[in-house]
Every structure is written in structure tokens, then in C-alpha cells.
């Protein structure tokens, strides 16, 4: 019997778990995760604005197929030259292949005053507890200025700031207090959404819903006593309740050699292959990598499929495809779809897209566990919805 090669996967999020399940037959796969649970991070928005915890997490062990080993521990160090990792217990593991997919570290401290602000009003990028604080504020606020601001343009789920403000608007309207609340979306970009093409879809919606947009505003300092946010650009913004999208950093793992991570701790991975530097046995996938496309579960999923194919000898490459289903309230939704060669398509907001978005969320757990079932379906979906095709429809 031929001994299988050892494949270590650091992180059991969507990228790590899909990769593990895709390679379970061919490799001796071990997933190392610092929590026994796998979190579905888009659910934080559902907690923040709908108090819905249903899809938040599942035990990771229930999502991995038979034959995949699971270690619940945090990784202290990874040495790409030695081909080894060290766990928090100082146990060392060696590998033939490694995929690093531990996600990001949320750093509230990078923005002065943000820790205090999060304690007051919460956010929807860090923890369920913080998302719950958002739910409390949007359900108790009666008047004043409600702000969603961005402190880091490279945050997880690029549509989340506008999704947040539009879902908050829905809550305020349903509560009958909207006319007493001034809503502001303050972003670092020259427009509401960074991609100019998709902004053409978004801005009329924000205008129609009476949401003010403040551009070139990167939250830098928060004065919670005087309720003011100061931007890097030098502007000031007053609030009665505010949520600031926090700074995201790479994983807290020492990775050798040092040049395999950038100054913010993100792992330097090739955008087409996810390979780390010249190490053809090491890959970084998902939010933790420097890959230039969006930090989303779908991106991690697609990157995992590329890595799986590459280690099986196929010449697969990332197209940079994004597929961010988003809700804008009142049972309408849209998708941010782009790739390396095409800017975000102007997909209109409608009920069908909302239904698609909800279905994507509801099938999420099954997609992780059964790639053999879902891969053919998603292959067709991604082919039929290629940005080049959609651009011909939504000009």
C-alpha cells in the first residue's frame, strides 16, 4: 500500500474545509483550526440587522469528510524551508504540502477610539457579540445621525458597508423612525462603492433611500466623548451612533522566511496560483493571502479549487472571479461579479437576486461538505455567469 503524502491545512474556514474535502481521497489531509467551530461570517450582518443566528456556525468536525484529520489548536509557527509547523502546545508537524488559510485578524486598536466605539455600538466584522450590539442600537435609536464608516479599504466582504447601511435603513423604516434619522455612509473611495461600474447600480439606490455618502473619508480617530470621527484626510464627522469597519490584518502566526508575509501580516501569494513565493509545496488561500481580489468566502472557495487541481498536476489558475451576493433590504438583492479582466458588472437589484442570495447562504454547509455534488453545479453557474457574458446583458 502506497503511503499518501501529508497535506496540512492551517484553518478550517470555507477555503480550508473545501480544500480538505476535495483532497481527502488523494492525500493524508490534516486540518488545524483554532476553534472547534466553522463560522459563516456573512451571518454577522444577519445578526446585526435581523437578530438571526441560524447560520452562524457548525462544528467543523461535522463538515469534514471521512478520512480528514482534525486538530483543534492554534498554530504558532510555520517554517516553509523546514516544511514544518509548530502548534501552541509546541508539538511539531511536518508536511509534504501546506495550505495556509486561517483568515484575518481584526484589529480594533489600529483606529484610536474604535475599541470604545465597538463596546458601545458593536460592528459586523468581528464577533457575534458585537453584531448583537448593532442589532440593539438599530432597534432602539429614535433620532440623530447614524454613521457607517470604513477604517480599512481592504476589509472582508467589500459590499458589507453599503449592505449594512441599507439594512439599517430598512430597520429604521419598518420601525417608523427613519425620518428622524440622518444616515451617512463614509467611505475612503471617491464614490460610494470602489468599483465605478457597480457604483452606477448602487448610488441611485442610496439616493432613493435618502442615505448621504461622504467620500474620501478613511476613519482614523474616534472621539467617543464628543461623538466625532476624524478621517485620515482631515475631515470630521459627528454621530449619535456609529459603526466603523475595523482594520484587518494577517494571521498571528510567525511564518518563515520573513519575506513570505507583508508588513500587515498577509501572506505573499501569487494571484494566479496561490503559491507562496517559490515554494511549490506551499499555498495561501482566502482572506489571509495578499491575493488582490475580494476577501470573501466565494473567492476562498474558488482559490481552494485551483490549489486542489494544481497539487493533482493540473494547470489551474485563478481568474480573479468575485461573486458577492448582497442584500439591500425590502427583499431585494444584487451581486458584485468581476474578474481580473472585467470590472464589476452592473447587476440590477431585484427580488430574484435576493432569492439567489438567500439560497447561496442556505446551501453553504452542504457545499462545504459535498464538493463532489456541488462542483458540477457551480462549474456551470460560474461559466454561465462569467463577467464577459454578464457584461453583454447588463451594459
Amino acid at each position, binding site marked *: 500500500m502506497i503511503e499518501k503524502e501529508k497535506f496540512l491545512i492551517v484553518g478550517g474556514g470555507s477555503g480550508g474545509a473545501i480544500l480538505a474535502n476535495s483532497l481527502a481521497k488523494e492525500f493524508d489531509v490534516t486540518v488545524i483550526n483554532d476553534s472547534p467551530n466553522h463560522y459563516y461570517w456573512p451571518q454577522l450582518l444577519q445578526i446585526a440587522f435581523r437578530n438571526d443566528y*441560524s447560520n452562524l456556525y457548525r462544528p467543523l468536525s461535522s463538515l469534514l469528510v471521512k478520512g480528514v484529520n482534525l486538530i483543534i489548536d492554534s498554530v504558532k509557527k510555520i517554517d516553509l524551508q523546514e516544511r514544518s509547523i509548530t502548534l501552541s502546545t509546541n508539538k511539531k508537524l511536518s508536511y509534504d504540502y501546506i495550505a495556509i488559510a486561517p483568515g484575518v485578524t481584526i484589529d480594533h486598536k489600529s483606529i484610536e477610539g474604535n475599541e470604545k466605539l465597538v463596546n458601545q455600538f458593536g460592528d459586523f466584522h468581528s464577533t457575534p457579540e458585537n453584531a448583537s450590539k448593532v442589532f440593539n442600537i438599530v432597534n432602539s435609536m429614535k433620532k440623530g445621525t447614524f454613521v457607517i464608516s470604513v477604517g480599512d479599504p481592504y476589509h472582508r466582504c467589500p459590499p458589507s458597508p453599503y449592505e449594512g447601511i441599507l439594512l439599517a435603513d430598512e430597520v429604521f423604516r419598518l420601525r417608523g423612525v427613519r425620518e428622524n434619522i440622518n444616515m451617512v455612509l463614509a467611505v475612503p473611495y471617491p464614490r460610494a462603492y470602489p468599483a465605478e461600474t457597480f457604483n452606477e447600480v448602487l448610488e441611485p439606490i442610496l439616493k432613493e433611500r435618502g442615505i448621504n455618502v461622504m467620500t474620501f473619508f478613511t476613519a482614523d480617530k474616534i472621539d467617543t466623548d464628543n461623538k466625532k470621527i476624524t478621517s485620515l484626510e482631515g475631515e470630521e464627522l459627528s454621530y449619535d451612533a456609529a459603526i466603523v469597519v475595523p482594520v484587518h490584518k494577517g494571521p498571528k502566526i510567525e511564518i518563515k522566511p520573513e519575506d513570505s508575509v507583508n508588513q500587515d501580516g498577509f501572506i505573499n501569494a501569487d494571484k494566479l496560483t496561490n503559491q507562496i513565493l517559490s515554494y511549490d509545496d506551499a499555498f495561501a488561500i482566502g482572506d489571509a493571502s495578499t491575493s488582490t481580489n475580494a476577501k470573501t468566502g466565494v473567492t476562498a472557495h474558488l482559490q481552494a479549487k485551483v490549489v486542489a487541481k494544481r497539487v493533482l498536476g493540473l494547470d489551474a489558475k485563478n481568474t480573479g472571479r468575485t461573486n458577492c451576493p448582497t442584500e439591500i433590504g425590502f427583499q431585494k438583492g444584487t451581486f458584485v461579479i468581476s474578474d481580473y479582466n472585467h470590472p464589476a458588472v452592473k447587476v440590477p437589484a431585484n427580488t430574484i437576486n435576493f432569492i439567489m442570495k438567500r*439560497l447561496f447562504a442556505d446551501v453553504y454547509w452542504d457545499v462545504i461538505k*459535498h464538493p463532489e455534488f456541488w462542483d458540477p453545479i457551480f462549474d456551470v453557474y460560474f461559466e454561465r455567469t462569467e463577467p464577459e457574458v454578464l457584461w453583454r446583458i447588463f451594459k
Partner: protein
Amino acid sequence: MEEINEAELQSESIERLLNLVELLNNILKDEELLKAISNLLVSEETFLVIDRLPQLIKLIEKLTRQENLEKLDLLLGLLESLDKEILNKMGDSLSVMKKKEEAKPMSLSGLITSLSQPEVSKGLSLMLNLLKVLGS
């Protein structure tokens, strides 16, 4: 050995079935999804379509007969070749026909005067060209 494999296969199948039940349960528990589907399906337009379903089925049957499909294809080609301006002008000329009661008989001299108007002359040229194509 074979029995063990059989038992394993059965256990995997049952697990898959349970996963699919969980998936279905997720969908059925999703209030927002169900509300959106209901709002999309339960509408005045849907009721009208359901009410006219027998006529619609008959119409679809007629339209999808091979000879009609070919004609429809030609008609669609014709429609694609028309630009919006021409369609607007055709609409305008049809609205003139609705006012036939207001039209007065025209004398020979009136006809000759009208022929010198550029829009009449242009329209006549178009009609002559059309007649030539039809007659060829």
C-alpha cells in the same frame, strides 16, 4: 469484507440523506427567503396569468408549430432590423389614419402642390421603393 463495505456504503448514503434533509430544513426555515418567494409568486399578475392559463397554453401550442416558429423568426429578424426612429414614424403615420374623418378631399392642384413638399416627396419615394420590392 464485502458485508463491511456494504454497511459502510449504506451508512454513507444515510448520512448524505440526512445532510440533504438538513439543507432542505435550512431553506424551509429561511423566513426572508420564503417571504420573498411568496411576494414574487402571489401577485395580481400571477393570478391573471393563472386565470388565462388555458388560453396561454393554446397560444404557446400555436406559436411553437414549426411553420409558425419559422415565421416568428422572420418577424423577429425584421423587428431587430428596425430602429426606434422608424418605429416612431410608423406609429405617427398610423395615428394620422385614425383621423380619417377629418381628412378633406384633395383637388388635382392640391395634389401637385403637396408633391412639391419635401416630406411628401421623401415618403412617396420610400413607398415606391417598397412597392418595387413587393412587385419583384
